[in-house]
């Protein structure tokens, strides 16, 4: 396993939207394997993407397509946070003034020694030991 990078839900959603940074996000995800990087996300963030689809599209086919998409990467590790990480997230909420789910991302990153995050959410910029790369 080479370098580790955490991928936030908005990177996937940007591709779903085909918005201005969609190509950059797609190229980034496609380049991970070549660069021997392993991508990490959480089960919660994948559910969030699926909820967005459910909210905005009628057909369940799109949910199944998203699941195929998430299962495609051999190098995408879906983390299932333990109570340790949930507890740490509660502490990070106070220390870093983040909401619970962003705190949970930070807690998981620290637990697994992940220093870089791909996210369009600038909230993570205030976390000193984490570098936002998109």
């Amino acid at each position, binding site marked *: 396993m080479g370098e580790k990078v955490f991928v*936030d*839900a*908005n*990177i*996937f*959603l*940007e*591709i*779903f*939207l*085909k*918005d201005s940074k*969609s190509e950059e996000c*797609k190229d980034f995800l*496609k380049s991970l394997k070549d660069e021997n990087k392993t991508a990490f996300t959480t089960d919660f963030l994948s*559910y*969030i*993407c699926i*909820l*967005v*689809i459910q*909210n*905005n*599209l009628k057909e369940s086919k*799109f949910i199944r*397509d*998203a*699941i*195929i*998409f998430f*299962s*495609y990467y051999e190098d995408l590790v879906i983390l299932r946070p333990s109570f340790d990480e949930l507890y740490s997230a509660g502490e990070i909420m106070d220390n870093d003034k983040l*909401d619970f*789910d962003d705190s949970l991302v930070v807690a998981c990153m620290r637990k697994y020694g992940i220093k870089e995050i791909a996210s*369009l*959410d600038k909230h993570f910029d205030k976390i000193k030991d984490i570098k936002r790369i998109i």
Partner: protein
Amino acid sequence: MVLKFELEDELEHKFRETAMKKYGYMKGSLQKASREALRNWVNQQPSKIPKVDDPFKLVEGILSHLKGEKTSVQLQHEAKKLWAKKYL
């Protein structure tokens, strides 16, 4: 059946420590923990999901009708609120 493989030192150390904490400092603890870990891993692997050549084609632009109305970050925050409303 015996499986042999190498682990990184850090992972091996954590695995041994966690297995002993959970199953006790006795013979068989590592075997129990290994079985549990392998069973969980096997169960988590997709078995009925069809393979496709380019999965990006399945999802790229599926929400493009929202482009300009909402950003990906806004959609993410909306979904979190919805999830919280529904499940908390």
